[in-house]
């Protein structure tokens, strides 16, 4: 009773604070976050809005007479742009294989590292090292490995009889996409391994002990304990990585520059090529807007699917 009165008393006292003090208290969190927010709004949000407006305007950097509104013209051109459709197909290919291989190999690595063994700390540092390699350098490094002049990979494939002569797969229209995909897998395994390892280590150990006392084998334990515990982490990392990788153009720009003959061009690298090489900012923004719409649709579908699966349980 006494404490109740004290609390009410305290509440009343707080209301009697001078207006200036109350205002200062209310604005404190905004003051702390203001510098970060101002920067995000001016350097990310404003350009985003500008970029959306560019999609409906004729903006060419070197043409001083450009800049007028042209309605949906860019989108009409885009609907007949064969290079765009090929880039779209390549994006699916690139994202699908990269995410799948990164995830499967990352999960296996996380499971391997979850078992205690001598030297685990050192091994962990070594296998996670590719993640620290700058992406442009990862791209160049793999481009060199695929180069028959200084790289060993074509010679190995030749010795195995998989190639008639040592040549560079990055200049093969049928195979060029696999170069950046392999580099991407090498570079991205640590991300999945790190997140999944953290999730694995959060699973209570006694669950496994109880299950083995009940006679569950390793496969059964994996399916009925590990997977359900990992599922939320898997869902969110796969979703984030898919969006991220479909926007990730660095490796392709460095390794093949979309070539040969646009065979390894993805939508993100196509946007960059339009903006950087042709300086056609209007068209580049129109493609970017379509990509954004596709990614939002994808994310919404995943969220709806998740809701549906949760409600079914």
């Amino acid at each position, binding site marked *: 009773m006494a404490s109740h009165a004290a609390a009410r008393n305290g509440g009343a006292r707080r209301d009697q604070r001078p207006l200036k003090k109350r205002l200062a208290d209310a604005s404190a969190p905004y003051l702390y976050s203001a*510098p970060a*927010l101002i*920067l995000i709004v001016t350097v990310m949000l*404003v*350009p985003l809005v500008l*970029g959306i407006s560019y999609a409906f305007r004729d903006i060419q950097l070197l043409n001083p007479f450009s800049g007028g509104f042209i309605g949906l013209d860019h989108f009409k051109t885009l609907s007949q742009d064969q290079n765009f459709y090929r880039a779209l197909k390549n994006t699916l290919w690139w994202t699908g294989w990269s995410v799948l291989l990164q995830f499967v190999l990352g999960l296996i690595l996380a499971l391997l590292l979850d078992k205690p063994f001598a030297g685990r700390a050192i091994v962990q540092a070594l296998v996670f090292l590719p993640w620290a390699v700058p992406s442009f350098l990862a791209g160049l490094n793999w481009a060199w490995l695929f180069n028959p002049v200084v790289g060993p990979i074509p010679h190995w494939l030749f010795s195995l009889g998989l190639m008639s002569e040592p040549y560079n797969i990055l200049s093969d229209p049928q195979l060029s996409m696999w170069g950046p995909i392999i580099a991407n897998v090498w570079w991205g395994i640590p991300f999945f391994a790190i997140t999944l390892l953290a999730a694995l280590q959060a699973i209570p150990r006694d669950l496994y002990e109880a299950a083995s006392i009940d006679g569950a084998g390793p496969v059964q334990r994996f399916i009925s304990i590990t997977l359900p515990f990992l599922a939320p982490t898997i869902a969110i990392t796969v979703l984030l990585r898919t969006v991220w990788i479909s926007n990730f*153009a660095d490796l392709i720009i460095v390794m093949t520059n979309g070539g040969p003959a646009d065979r390894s061009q993805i939508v993100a690298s196509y946007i960059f090529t339009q903006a950087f090489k042709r300086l056609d*900012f209007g068209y580049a923004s129109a493609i970017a807007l379509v*990509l954004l719409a596709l990614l939002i649709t994808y994310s919404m579908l995943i969220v709806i699917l998740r809701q549906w699966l949760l409600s079914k349980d």
Partner: protein
Amino acid sequence: MTGKRIASVLAHRLAILAYVVFALFPLYWLLKVSVTPNKLLYSEGIKMWPSQTSFEHFDFVLKHSEFPTFFKNSLIVSGSTAIIVTVLASLAGYAMSRFTFRGKYWIVTLMLLTQMFPLVMLVAPIFKMLSPLGLTNSLTGLVIVYTAFNVPFATFLMQSFFDGIPKDLEEAAMIDGATQFVAFRQIILPLTLPGIAATLGFVFTAAWSELLFSLMLISGNDSATFPVGLLSFVSKFSVDFGQMMAAGVMALIPACLFFLLIQRYLVQGLTAGAVKG
């Protein structure tokens, strides 16, 4: 120990070994070619280690190329970005961790949103905005852009570190008469030093690796960062493999140093980041 158990331990170690080899082989090859003298580069091209080693490529790159300038530019850009981002993210992360306020939901949503949309979409508008301000072809322009891109993730990271520090500490200080900001600066910040180091490392590595915006915003050699310099070097002198790889090894050094520094926080940091953003 039964045979089956030995076999499973052996399979486990072999699998680990395969991962280590796959992770390290490309970097090993980079190092190997960078120390192979030119006369052996083609004759011993696919040998695992050359019969002679030399540092002639490193010597050439340091003395006769513009890589020292690129290296300096990248160091300036990445260092300033890391410091500014960490200051801004500490402030914002503290607000997210310690206050409940009406705009919080919207700020978090805004920050999550910036992690979702394609940054390549911003290439053209940012170029158009920075060019009348004289910030294209300038290191300052790059620092501004990189700072904005890295602040959201760094804020979530700092918030998770602040969340791990008990609130009683600054409450005690405030009862003793300190203002909240003084309590934050003198009590909470020193306790978050490991978190600050991790954030610095993350942001430095991210800025050191960034390619698209520096390609777009920088055109001259004077303010080119390392990725841009290396890429233009590759397209111009694409036969000097030894020199290119020596430059590559140099680009790797700061990133690897920071990696060793933040390695311990990786699992903690990425988990926080993955769950929230």
